[in-house]
């Protein structure tokens, strides 16, 4: 199957005059989506400055499992019943793996999205004592986690900035979003039967953990410009554009 990363798209046309993007990766993809290069400005992500600068590193206590819905409002592939059934197998395998480990687990559900596979039902079956949150501050939950397990979501980028190891159970064998796997900044579960071994590697294998750390640095370098100073940069750029107008 052709990779979904070749099929990224902007859902609708750009109406704004300038589009401030996180880094080169976003710029490259916006150009592929037909946005003229002169409308694109690399500014970094001001929202993440707080993660670079202010979030305290605290004792790493638990595995944080993020649950959300599949991106089926964007891509028809995820509307197929067979694809959702495969995802159910994948998610179940993650719960089975977590049941086998002697670790504390916290589940953070998406605040608004209705999940295709209900993580609460799986939790009840495999992890009856697990804490499940919906509206708790994600940054605080991330900062105290020893491992983050999440399908594709911007939370992965946030975890990478906080220098946390990440495991992605994948919908398909493709990065499908930012180049997390391509930069070796995360481990991926590509087959349900691999869930336990991948999670164990991310938790306990020092060599793998060191490689992931290097990968995370590479990801930030290549995809998030002006880390920690993006707000300053964005304001500078806005002022410059307004001056020149």
């Amino acid at each position, binding site marked *: 199957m052709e990779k979904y990363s070749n099929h990224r798209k902007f859902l609708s046309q750009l109406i704004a005059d300038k*589009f401030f993007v996180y880094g080169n990766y976003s710029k490259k993809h*916006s150009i592929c989506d037909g946005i003229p290069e002169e409308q694109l400005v690399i500014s970094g992500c001001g*929202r993440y400055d707080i993660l670079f600068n202010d979030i305290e590193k605290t004792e790493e206590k638990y595995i944080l499992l993020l649950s959300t819905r599949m991106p089926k409002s964007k891509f*028809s592939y995820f*509307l197929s019943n067979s694809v959702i059934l495969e995802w159910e197998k994948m998610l179940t395998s993650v719960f089975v793996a977590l049941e086998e480990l002697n670790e504390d687990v916290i589940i953070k559900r998406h*605040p608004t999205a209705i999940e295709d596979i209900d993580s609460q039902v799986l939790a009840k079956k495999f992890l009856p004592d697990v804490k499940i949150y919906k509206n708790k501050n994600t940054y605080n939950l991330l900062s105290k986690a020893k491992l983050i397990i999440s399908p594709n979501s911007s939370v992965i980028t946030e975890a990478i900035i906080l220098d946390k190891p990440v495991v992605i159970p994948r919908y398909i064998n493709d990065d499908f979003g930012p180049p997390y796997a391509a930069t070796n900044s995360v481990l991926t579960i590509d087959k349900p039967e691999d869930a336990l071994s991948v999670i164990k590697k991310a938790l306990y294998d020092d060599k793998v953990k060191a490689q992931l750390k290097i990968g995370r640095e590479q990801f930030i370098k290549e995809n998030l410009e002006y880390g920690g100073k993006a707000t300053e940069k964005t304001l500078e750029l806005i002022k410059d554009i307004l001056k020149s107008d």
Partner: protein
Amino acid sequence: MVKIFFLDNIPKNIEILEQKNSKIFPLNFKVEKYLRDKKIIPEDTSKWLNWDDFIFIDKTSMDIPKKWGLMKHLEKNLNFRGINLSLLIEKELSLSLLPLIHKIILIEKIIENTNPKIAVIDKNDNTYSGKILKKILKRNNIKIEHIDVKKTTKQDIYFEKVTFGLEFLGKTYDITLKRKHFFILKNIYEKYWDIKFKINHLKIQQKKKYNKTILLIDFQLINYYSFLKDLSNTNYNLIFLNSRRPIIWNQESLKISKNLNLIKMQLENEKDEKESKKKIMDIKKYLDEIQEKSIFYLKQHNYSDILKSIILELVEKRISEIMMIINSFEKKLKTQNIDAVVTLDDSQLFERSIILSCKKKNIPIFLIQNGDM
């Protein structure tokens, strides 16, 4: 003789599915899951839709919303205060079409692969899915038999329901409401926090006013605190205009607001139903007169009746809201000078209504990436 069951809803009597030579095709995951739980295994269609089909579905669901409003000779019917109204519903239309076009292609593939003589469906299903199914079966001369279902689920136009968080006694509760009820509740909730904000601001010394003003659309104080705080320290007045979640909606955002030079813009909520009805008639006329039929053809088959109905339904549901936003905002623009707009989204109805009004006045618009690509 092979009999195929197309199930978009759960049947009343599932024993009927167990007859010989039956092939069962659930058209959504909810039905698939229900049947599997009852040990009824549907046909596997996973190999029937290939990569090119998915690309076609995705592309078509984006192309129709972009193209339907571009008929130059009819453009005046879509025009409201110099804005092409088709641009304002582009995203909602695209999101609403994606599952329907997926369904069209899936049904076509099932028929191609099974060549049935009889199809069993819920004949009373008058949703867009039901209409699509009946249309395809009729075109293929397939005899239709009826099956009773427990309840027909009507597929809503996208964003017809809104989920949002409300803080009550220090806890956040998620509530899902129909769009029109959401706006009523949101206004009440916003008024409550406005009073708290005003009491709060009586104690705070207002910063001086600057010559230049930036309008910020739908920013959240909690997520963008550092950005907004630094922006607040520059020589710009900041005006916040929020559509979905109010700018101040809980204790945390109220606390943050003390540190910002924050001015809220409030749009009027008065809808002009007479003006809206007239515009709906204009748009209906536009749709009736579109000659370029290829826009509504999918794989050589004409779906213009169904696709035009979806567009018209979306227009009918949204037009008074759109006209209210544009009317009210343009009234504000007569007295409020704005030098730039900063937004986190330029694709949805509210943002586009504001942005396109500003563009007419050559006000620069800056979109900030808000989430991964």
